[in-house]
């Protein structure tokens, strides 16, 4: 098992325990794609420390296609095989132009069912009965059982369908990026495709209405992501929602990680939190 660390902040690199792999970049926001001098610095840091370098791109609109392409061009010129995590299908064609770059299917494209509030429902562990007043009438609400096949559906994705695997390998995609799920993962790829698991923060969703989801209501990017984290549902939800920038997450536990990583083709843990990295790598 290899440990990777995901960051878009060049400043933290001197504070971290050395991972096996550095994931540099951002998955969710094209306004904070790292500048080329930062990418060069991060690449040099990885090279110096004998650490594999992976570049991460967010989903991009036409305005940022040239920027992304120029960064890919720079990375291709490093004359090393560099993995590029992409999060929209348009970016794949940019990556495939460069012979030294290896596309990796980002976790926004791997399409898992991830919202933790589903946990008790799909596992039939919610309360069996609830009493409420509906339309002025006392109402007994009984929980309907869900079939086991639904839980399996929530553990899977479209990724391990035979012809999908063929398509991925034909397009040089040999790795899927996955989130860690409280109810487990059942994605069975063949040996051609390896799996990464992100830990501890699972991404649920993302938006371009960054100001609204952060309750700042600003329309222009004011880099809220650098100064604010909101946690919603603390003391109420088992997994509170965490908002950082334009994306919503929740935090998973080491127990879930331990249960998950022993299964399937998972050979990489991508740690998206500095403290967790330092704890895991030293531990």
């Amino acid at each position, binding site marked *: 098992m290899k440990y990777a660390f995901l960051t878009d902040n060049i400043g933290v690199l001197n504070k971290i325990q050395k991972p096996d792999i550095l994931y540099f970049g951002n998955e969710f926001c094209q306004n904070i794609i790292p500048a080329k001098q930062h990418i060069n610095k991060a690449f040099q840091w990885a090279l110096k420390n004998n650490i594999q370098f992976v570049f991460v791109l967010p989903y991009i609109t036409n305005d940022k296609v040239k920027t992304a392409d120029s960064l890919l061009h720079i990375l291709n010129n490093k004359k090393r095989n560099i993995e590029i995590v992409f999060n929209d*299908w348009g970016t794949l064609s940019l990556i495939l132009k460069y012979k030294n770059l290896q596309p990796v299917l980002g976790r926004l494209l791997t399409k898992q069912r991830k919202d933790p509030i589903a946990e008790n429902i799909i596992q039939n562990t919610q309360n069996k009965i609830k009493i409420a007043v509906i339309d002025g009438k006392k109402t007994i609400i009984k929980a309907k059982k869900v079939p086991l096949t639904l839980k399996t559906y929530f553990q899977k994705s479209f990724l391990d369908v035979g012809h999908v695997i063929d398509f991925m390998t034909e397009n040089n995609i040999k790795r899927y990026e996955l989130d860690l799920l409280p109810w487990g993962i059942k994605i069975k790829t063949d040996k051609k495709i390896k799996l990464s698991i992100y830990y501890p923060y699972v991404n649920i*969703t993302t938006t371009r209405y960054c100001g609204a989801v952060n309750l*700042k*209501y600003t329309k222009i990017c004011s880099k809220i992501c650098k100064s604010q984290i909101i946690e*919603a549902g603390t003391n109420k939800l088992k997994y509170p929602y965490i908002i950082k920038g334009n994306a919503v997450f929740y935090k998973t536990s080491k127990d879930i990680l331990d249960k998950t990583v022993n299964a399937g083709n998972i050979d990489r843990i991508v740690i998206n939190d500095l403290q967790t990295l330092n704890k895991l790598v030293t531990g």
Partner: protein
Amino acid sequence: MINKFKTIIGLNPNDNISELVENGLDEVYCGYYDAEFNKKWPVAFTTVNRRGEGVNFSSFNLLKTAARKLYKHGIKSYITLNGYYTQEQYPWLVKNIKKIADEDSIDGVIVNDIGVLLLLKQLKFKKNITISTLATPLNNNAVEFYQKFGATRIVLDRQLNPNEITKMVNKYPKLEFEIFVVSTGGCLFIDGYCSFFHCLEKTKNKQSGKHIMQIEKYDITTSGAGCCELLNNFSQKLYTSTDNTKHDKFDLAKTMGFNCNICMLYRLKGIKNISLKVDSRGSNGTGVTNISMLKTLLKAVDDSKSNKEYIASAKKLLKRFKKVKCNPKICLCGNL
């Protein structure tokens, strides 16, 4: 000049087809499931597409009957197969794609799963293929990626702004595009990148006595959707922030109105390869209300001599039809 936007609405099983026909729409889109599918993957959990019970037809035959009625009036029907499908669902999928292919009244499918797109190719599917907004076609390269799968139309993401839209559609004049309009119950997140849980079930009264009622539901714990759960926590002030500066007070009512795209209609009026899609399934009002609102807005587009004049009319119409106000603070457009 009367503009020629094609209008498309989501069809519900309870919609009155004659009323819809009278309102002069061009196309509908709708989904279905069947008992075999529902037993293994209850449709309430949005397993067949992004919609649940009540909004999807409960059998292919029911859908076919509606599609044939519409077909007689020259209205096309598209079927949403825009979920993500696992290997176990493929036998059902193959069987049902063949049914769709054989039914003359159905014009095509709406898809976003690469696996389904590959399957359509394998099955030599001859009808139209629309790429769902769930496929997040956000840039020209993505459009070209989906064209390779035989896409005849692309539904653009709700969070693209008018400049982004016009640049994309003008670049591909032979390809059709759809944009969502009028759906003022819209969502805060990007459809195709969102994995918030939704349990869209239609509760059935089991027993109803004089003083007590008994019902059965799959989900008796949550608000039925993760995004609602998040917003409820905001409105109940059950959140903490690492930033101590003052936040605006969260107002759920004010957040309704995302993605209505009404304010951009005048700017898009000369573009021939855009169709307007009304998401009238579920919480967004009935098809008739929405299509009639859209038609009125399009008349305002035609009658207006400038964008400013149109915006003034649209403001009034939004108030009349939806009783909501545009909120520029939370919309990427926010011009009303």
